[in-house]
């Protein structure tokens, strides 16, 4: 929880923003028991994020004065009942907002009634003043596991599928590259001989895949902090151990390390993997990657008209760590002051600092945890290093880059100046894409 007195230029939203995690599950629908504006606020934050039944399609009780005074449970009963008539969906997730929480509606009992009739419905408390969407993503996933996946446990014995894993990585929509990233993780893990449940997006198997969560042999957590409660929960519930890679793997060093770590862990966990084949796959990926880097090196080293030599990143902890390491070692751009804007809880900050420190033993990279991005910008406004600067951040940072005369790459939310569909930044190919994006933008300044 953030202690900031104000947040300017927010880079995340409140708990109910985790409705996007529901939208990311094929044919699932979020049902909001909330004020009339919550859906609009979330749709406006993420933009281009309606999916199958989110955005203006999502049912909502639209709390009015009447529900505030008398409670909204009857209204919710009506809306849920009619959702089944109007929308064709496989999973319904009721998310409650501030109004429902303050009024104290007993949503659990109501939803239990529908569940007792066999409806695939779950509920999760997502009052905006209780958590951020980074945190509430875990609440949503846990709710689906405890209230829905639970019903299929008899036919999905825990850890019964040796080579299957659950992947807990990108937060849908909050990570602008989530769709591409999940697809790439799935491909990479398949290269090792593992079948990954990615749970969200078109490469997931929808609710059938969710039902099979218990069968996975072990889990993979790719995140500095968010999503960890899910991994812990699955460990408790199904005895699935997890291997924890603490940031998004971008480029060859990190992706190689990630795959090595997963491979070791898989072997320990008794996965039936052809190790030689898996190692050959990694080698092939690395070789293909460096073929590109070698081709590019001359340009990076010789382009005489000016390229950025240092960078500032304003992003969530996973991207700040990943891009800092990647830019320094694999692109040759020196990371300077970095800003983590995701409201990282204090308990994780030290480990993240330590991880960043491992980026280099010959330089100090100042790191700020600052959910108040307006304040982060104020700090950055006062910083100047020699050479051409690059800022990687949200749309807000374009304005700052313009003011400072820096290059700018849009890679975080909110993102009014860039469209992302299936692009991935994770993996070997993700690293190459970051390089393409940076230099495409740099070269276009010479046009």
């Amino acid at each position, binding site marked *: 929880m*953030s202690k*900031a*007195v*104000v*947040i*300017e*230029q*927010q880079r*995340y*939203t*409140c708990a*109910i*923003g985790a409705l996007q995690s529901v939208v990311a599950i094929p044919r699932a*629908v979020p049902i*909001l028991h909330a*004020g*009339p*504006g*919550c*859906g*609009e*606020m*979330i*749709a*406006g*934050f993420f933009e281009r994020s*309606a999916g199958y039944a989110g*955005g*203006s*399609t*999502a*049912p*909502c*009780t*639209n709390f*009015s*004065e009447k*529900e*505030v005074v008398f409670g909204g449970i009857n209204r919710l009963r009506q809306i849920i009942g*009619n959702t089944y*008539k*109007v*929308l*064709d969906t496989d999973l319904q997730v009721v998310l409650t907002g*501030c*109004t429902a929480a*303050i*009024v104290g509606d007993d949503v659990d009992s109501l939803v239990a009634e529908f569940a007792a009739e066999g409806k695939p419905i779950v509920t999760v408390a997502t*009052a*905006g*003043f*209780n958590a951020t*969407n980074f945190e509430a993503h875990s609440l949503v996933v846990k709710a689906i596991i405890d209230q829905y996946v639970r019903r299929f446990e008899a036919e999905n014995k825990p850890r019964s599928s040796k080579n299957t894993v659950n992947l807990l990585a990108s937060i849908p929509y909050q990570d602008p590259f989530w769709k591409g990233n999940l697809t790439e993780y799935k491909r990479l893990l398949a290269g090792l001989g593992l079948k990954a449940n990615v749970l969200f997006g078109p490469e997931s198997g929808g609710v059938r895949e969710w039902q099979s969560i218990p069968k996975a042999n072990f889990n993979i957590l790719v995140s500095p902090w968010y999503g960890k409660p899910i991994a812990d929960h699955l460990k408790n519930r199904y005895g699935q151990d997890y291997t924890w890679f603490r940031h998004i793997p971008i480029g060859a060093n990190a992706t190689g390390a990630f795959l090595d770590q997963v491979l070791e862990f898989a072997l320990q966990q008794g996965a039936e993997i052809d190790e030689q084949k898996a190692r050959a796959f990694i080698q092939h990926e690395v070789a293909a990657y460096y073929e590109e880097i070698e081709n590019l090196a001359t340009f990076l080293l010789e382009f005489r008209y000016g390229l950025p030599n240092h960078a500032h990143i304003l992003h969530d902890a996973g991207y700040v760590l990943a891009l800092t390491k990647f830019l320094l070692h694999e692109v040759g751009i020196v990371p300077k002051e970095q800003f983590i804007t995701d409201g990282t809880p204090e308990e994780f900050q030290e480990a993240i600092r330590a991880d960043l420190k491992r980026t280099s033993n010959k330089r100090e990279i100042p790191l700020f945890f600052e*959910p108040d991005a*307006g*304040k982060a910008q104020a700090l950055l406004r006062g910083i100047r290093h020699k050479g051409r600067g690059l800022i990687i951040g949200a749309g*807000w940072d374009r*304005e700052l880059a313009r003011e400072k005369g820096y290059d700018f790459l849009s890679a975080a939310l*909110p993102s*009014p100046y860039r469209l992302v569909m299936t692009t991935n930044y994770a993996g070997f190919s993700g690293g190459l894409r970051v390089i393409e994006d940076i230099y495409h933008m740099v070269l276009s300044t010479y046009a």
Partner: protein
Amino acid sequence: MTKINLALPAAAIREIRINSITGYQGDAEELVKAGGCDLKDKERSFSQCMGCTTSKAACMTILIQDAAVISHGPVGCASCLHEFSFTYRVNAPLRGVKKPTPRRIFSTNLQEKEAIYGGGLKLAQAIREVQNRTNAKVIFVLTTCASGIIGDDVESVCTEAEEELGIPVVPIFCEGFRSKVWTTGFDAAYHAIARKLIPKPQQRRKDLINVINFWGSDVFSQWFAPFGAKPNYITPYATLDNLKQAGEAVATVQACSTLGSYLGAVLEQDFGVPEIPAAPPYGIAQTDRWFRALGQILGQESVAEKLIAEKKKEFLPKIEALRRKLAGKTAYVTAGAAHGHALLAVLGELGVTPCGAAIFHHDPVYDSGRPENDQLAQRVADYGNVPNYNVCNKQEFELVNALNRLRPDVLLARHGGMTLWGAKLGIPALLVGDEHYAMGYEGLVNYGERLVEVMENDEFVKDLAKHAVMPYTKWWLAQPPSYFLRGGTGQ
């Protein structure tokens, strides 16, 4: 009898003030006839995400050049406001703002602790911090559902901050749950602006006409010039000083009566600035009336007649040519109330048959109380009835149902997210963001040309329709659109 009282902190909501409704299914003529007395709102037993008063109040304040805006609530309640910073930058050239600065938007990031013990203290700290950081000339504080229900005394906190900081700190009471008509958020913002920022006029400036609008292009400078006047645009792109002048203007016009109903009436009743007795100039008949009303209020009737004659000479032949191209076409309109009526008038003028409309709410009478300002009544009188007229606050399920049934040649929309449903059904869809685009005689040409273009270039929507996925059940699409409306078959 007025229901405007600037002595009170909050504006009364539209449902109470002017009997606005959000549920109706019938035709336009019947709705107009029902007027303010016979009209009863109808509830729905199914509903989808609506819209929020707080974001409507936000857009009328964030775009004020030298303002900072604080949303007093959880961080989620300011989630979509970044879009107004984008709007401000993108449309700045249309309004002569050379260096659009990033908008200053803050959230007090209300947490559980404050939800229990109150957030007043945090708000006071936030106002200080914002003033230090921005040096804004005015700070607006928007309330939210959470801060409203926990009962923070936002009025007192703002008054104290104002005394301490020496700049206006303006509370706007716009909790989402208060009204089903989200345009109440505009009223809330205007109420606060009029109450706190506009001084009683010391003079009457004959060269200044208030234009209440969004962020559309500057068409009014050119229109007012023959009258020796210029527009005072309020509130987007205004400075605090521009707002202060509003009480001195000679008249007020509106780009959209839904938007400016309240402020127009406030300026007339409390500051003596008359609102011109005519709905905005959409369609030839209404444009004639509008210029005449303007001429009359300015005492320059002959200027108005000359202007009308010149413009008609220039544009009528082009409009006639467009009518020939558009003959036999049908359209469906979905938009906020008055702008929807305006688009229906434009269609009427261009000879396109409206086969239905989904309009977000209905104000049976505007705050001025003048029947001349009722754009839907004018539309019906000028061009005839509109069938399948549905009042629904962005209830997409009803829109999809109606579109699927009526299959118009084109869908006209004003708010985001709605055009998709035209496209999914293979119906070309047009959203014009600039609300001034279709205004006046020249606007009919602008809009008519876009209509022709969008219907001609339908390859994309035809292709999309082949692959589109429909989350709505077959059962629902077979029911009447009013099924879940009180009195409908599903009740």
